[in-house]
């Protein structure tokens, strides 16, 4: 068993008196693709945001390559730089071109010279099939294209793990395919990924492990075949039957 890239230990997060996540623990090994499923409001997105410290966990510990990132005194900006985050609403920088979106982090955060950053950015854009649109502004792109740029922006920082927060939920159905294809390609290239998604077909095909979350905690986890074909938990079965009506579970 290789050393985990990411180890989450007894993660809890509450807002005021409302506990959103309770006692979530799991390891992520290199090149592993984890898809997190579950109904809305079960803390999946909150969990992702806790993992890269966009939200401060209430308790619990998170380790990135054996180093505890939740320890006091850790440079949080540096931690976030090492994890790529892709957002449901894309959140591209509206005043920058596609190329600018990908280079700004490399130049302003990693301190890479502008020329080198541009070359690297073009490579990353090539990876997501957006290199030919590099001079356009976000407003000129379709949703699927925006999300692919969002992925390239995260890739540009050479992340150790990529976090996807419902990357296709804001897209028209006919545009989800191009984004999922890019993610599938990244998975094949060995990128470590945690994906919160409602795309069950994608989960089944690409995930190494599926985590089903319910009420802020992990209800069940396992390889996709097991989760989708023979779920152990009654709740998992119920969830899957609701989102895939007609399919036998």
């Amino acid at each position, binding site marked *: 068993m290789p050393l985990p890239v990411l180890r989450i230990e007894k993660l809890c997060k509450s807002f005021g008196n409302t506990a959103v996540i309770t006692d979530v623990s799991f390891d992520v090994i290199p090149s592993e693709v984890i898809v997190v499923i579950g109904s809305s409001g079960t803390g999946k997105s909150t969990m992702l945001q806790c993992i890269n410290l966009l939200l401060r966990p209430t308790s619990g510990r998170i380790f990135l390559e054996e180093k505890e990132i939740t320890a006091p005194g850790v440079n949080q900006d540096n931690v976030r*730089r090492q994890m790529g985050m892709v957002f449901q609403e894309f959140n591209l920088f509206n*005043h920058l071109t596609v190329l600018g979106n990908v280079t700004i982090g490399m130049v302003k*955060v990693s301190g890479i010279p502008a020329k080198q950053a541009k070359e690297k950015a073009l490579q990353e854009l090539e990876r997501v099939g957006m290199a030919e649109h590099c001079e356009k502004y976000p407003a000129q792109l379709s949703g699927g294209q925006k999300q692919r740029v969002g992925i390239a922006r995260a890739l540009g920082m050479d992340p150790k793990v990529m976090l996807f927060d419902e990357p296709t939920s804001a897209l028209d159905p006919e545009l989800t395919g191009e984004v999922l294809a890019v993610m599938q390609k990244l998975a094949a290239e060995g990128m470590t990924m945690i994906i919160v998604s409602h795309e069950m077909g994608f989960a089944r095909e690409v995930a190494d492990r599926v985590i089903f979350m319910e009420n802020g905690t992990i209800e069940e986890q396992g390889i996709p075949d097991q989760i989708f074909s023979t779920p152990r938990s009654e709740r998992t079965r119920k969830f899957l039957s609701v989102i895939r009506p007609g399919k036998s579970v």
Partner: protein
Amino acid sequence: MQAFYTMLQFLLPGLGVTISVTAIALCMGCCIGALMAVMRVYGGLVAKAIAVCYSMVVRAVPVVVLIFILFFVISEFVDLSPFMSGAIALGFASGAYQTEIFRGALLSIPQGQMVAARGIGMSRAKAIRCIILPQAFRVAIPSLINEVSLVLKDSSLVFVIGVPELMRRAQYASASTMEPLLAFGTAAFFYIMMTLFVSKLLEAVEKRFAISF
């Protein structure tokens, strides 16, 4: 027509002074405004309080009063020419209005921009500088055009401390030629021309930097 032409020539040197006073005031106001707005929107309790007080107090005091305070009180301690104290007073006043302009612009930037900037490892300060402010400036341009024309006109107030700008020279001409309509009419003509020119210029800037969401 000949009289108008002579008047134009007489007022012309004042035009330069008016433009310089306005330019200094606007630049100063822009720096103060951007800083105060960031303090107000992103700052801690103390920073917020400072920004709120500044904007409230300065907007409540007539610009002429500010000009007199700076000229008669502050220049007791610091060596300030009437020109500089006038320009600084105007800048100080404009800063308060620009604070409000920039505050509105900052608040209009979607939350996700900050989250995404933090997500690629930017510190809060860097995210504000590289991501939020550049967008806020663009959003603010239409309101800034308005502010430019207001400051341009307010610059006539510095005539009270003897700065030889457009208004001062017009007043002088009016007194010496006994033709107030010609003198002030010509001054008005200059103000209209400048306002038109600046608005057109900034509208071009607005178009050039427009971002769609």
